[in-house]
């Protein structure tokens, strides 16, 4: 179906027509923005599963997927992009298969590695936006720090139980970063009492699809430097379904990652001076 990145083929018009006629997408121009967009999704689990098909379906031109986990039966109640026949397969490869069938126009690149300080820059470079669909504080700080250094916008989300949170970080390299919100990492011991929280599949699923909506808005230019206001959205599934939007602080001048006197740079990250392992307590962090 494909033609060059600067125009749409007839099959592409047919495929995307029903979204191109929505005024907010900006029609052909918007579709070309989607086509030339490069989005990196870190984690093909409970958030990445529902998010990825909508990015591919919408026609995001290049999608990278970072995940070194393999599919387990216990994932499938919420990680519905995978299936029982793929147990043991790498999640990034499982997802690639699905996206390739859904929309062959999309270029899918997989990274079957655990994201860490030594490989993050190499993986992130070349992408416009990164989606943080990971499940540990370590990676959340790392994703944010690397994105800030590369000037990338981050769509960051998380979920547990019946709740989820979503934020757009380092928006156009002027919004707040993860460290602006959370300058001090949480102590591993403080979260012990509610360990093993579990999660309702469609509750984290909604948050994953919300990430796709935010990503599309960023690509289409719905958010601008002028109108963007830092926020944290909080979804709750029980007893009633609600989304609350909290107005958040802007970029913090004293932030060690994005502030005026930064100490978190490509050099300090890659040399291992920034100690991400401080978050790696023995506690299970998927909790509260």
């Amino acid at each position, binding site marked *: 179906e494909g033609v060059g990145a600067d125009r749409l083929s007839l099959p592409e018009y047919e495929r995307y027509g029903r979204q191109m006629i929505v005024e907010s997408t900006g029609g052909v121009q918007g579709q070309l923005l989607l086509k030339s967009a490069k989005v990196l999704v870190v984690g093909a689990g409970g958030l990445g599963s529902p998010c990825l098909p909508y990015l591919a379906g919408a026609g995001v031109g290049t999608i990278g997927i970072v995940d070194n986990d393999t599919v387990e039966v216990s994932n499938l109640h919420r990680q519905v992009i995978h299936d029982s026949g793929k147990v043991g397969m790498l999640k990034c490869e499982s997802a690639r298969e699905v996206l390739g069938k859904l929309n062959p126009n999309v270029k899918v690149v997989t990274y079957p590695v655990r994201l860490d300080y030594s490989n993050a820059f190499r993986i992130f470079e070349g992408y416009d936006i990164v989606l943080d669909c990971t499940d540990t504080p370590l990676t959340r700080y790392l994703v944010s720090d690397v994105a800030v250094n590369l000037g990338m916008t981050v769509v960051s989300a998380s979920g547990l139980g019946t709740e989820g949170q979503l934020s757009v970080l380092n928006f156009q390299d002027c919004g707040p970063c993860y460290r602006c*919100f959370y300058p*001090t*990492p*949480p102590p591993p011991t403080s979260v012990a*009492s*509610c360990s093993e929280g579990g999660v309702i599949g469609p509750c984290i699923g909604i948050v994953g699809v919300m990430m796709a909506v935010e990503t599309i808005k960023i690509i289409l230019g719905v958010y601008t430097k002028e109108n963007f206001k830092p926020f944290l959205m909080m979804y709750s599934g029980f007893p009633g379904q609600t989304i609350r939007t*909290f107005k958040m602080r802007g970029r913090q001048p004293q932030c060690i990652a994005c502030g005026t006197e930064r100490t978190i740079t490509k050099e300090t990250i890659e040399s291992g001076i920034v100690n991400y392992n401080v978050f790696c307590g023995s506690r299970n962090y998927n909790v509260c």
Partner: protein
Amino acid sequence: MANVTVEFLGGLDVVVQKQRVHKLHLPAEVVSVGDLIEYIASTLIKNPRDVAVFLEDGGVRPGIITLINDTDWELEGQTEYVLEDNDVVSFTSTLHGG
């Protein structure tokens, strides 16, 4: 004297008998959000071991976001903010699951 609503979100309700929303009629000496935090630690949290989930070094534990009327308390003066009738103060743990 102020009537305020206090919410514990993101799983933080474990420290207050799993009750997410508390409508409080505050005693006169609870004036600021800082006072409210002390009041919560001393009155609302029944199990002393749970205080460490909520507080660290006398302040709200890192990883917990505090909101005053749905706005980050950093924009409202943090602990100094003077409570008004019908204010909603929310504490939410940061979720990490994905």
